[in-house]
């Protein structure tokens, strides 16, 4: 059974790239455009991992991480955040909120897959 990953990003192009790459690596992918959209979609799904951008309208990444950690069902779900190099503080905020790990933009498809495997196992 392939594992399901939710990608949350307001940038359509990044979402598309993440989605393509992960599907190619054999994962199932669901997309959400921001934190609120993610929270709306996630309850009905068995999501094994969430990959979220940090800056988004309608509930940003940090808010989403906090909401998920507060929900018993997603208390331990691995969450990766997409950060940029200039966002050291935001990354720290995300770690404190309960993110499992991070990927720094820009990243290559191989790096994304390697990081996902690092957290989920093969």
């Amino acid at each position, binding site marked *: 059974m392939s594992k399901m990953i939710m990608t949350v990003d307001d940038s359509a192009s990044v979402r598309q790239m993440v989605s393509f790459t992960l599907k190619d690596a054999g994962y199932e992918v669901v997309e959400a455009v921001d934190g609120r959209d993610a929270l709306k979609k996630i309850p009905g799904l068995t999501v094994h991992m969430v990959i979220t951008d940090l800056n988004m309208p309608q509930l940003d990444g940090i808010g989403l991480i906090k909401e998920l950690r507060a929900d018993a*069902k997603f*208390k*331990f*779900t691995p969450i990766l955040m997409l950060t940029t190099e200039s966002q050291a503080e935001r990354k720290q905020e995300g770690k404190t909120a309960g993110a499992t790990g991070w990927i720094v933009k820009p990243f290559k498809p191989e790096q994304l897959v390697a990081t996902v495997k690092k957290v989920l196992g093969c």
Partner: protein
Amino acid sequence: MQSVENGLKQNSRLALAGELTISRASELAASIGQWLAEQETVAVLDLAAVTAADVSFLQILCAAHRSSLREGKSLSVVSPSRELLRAMKTAGFERRQPCTQCTGDTCLWQVKEGL
């Protein structure tokens, strides 16, 4: 979804199934604890249908075993699944000698030569 409730309970035997990971840790610890309390001398965990396990479950097993020793019961694991054995091996829980608490008894983590 499998859970302890629909796991098989007969002849002091408890079968656990599915993904035994951190998200179910509290629930598993509670039900194993309750089940163990109900057993008189012999308790057998059947782990043949475990499809995934992580460190949190290995800790629960170890803790359960320690409780059973204290209470003078014998807790053993039968037919562990490949996935469970792999988790044990990967996380370094295998032992060639029993751990200190288990002296004189069969340690859960002891690997017999030739197995």
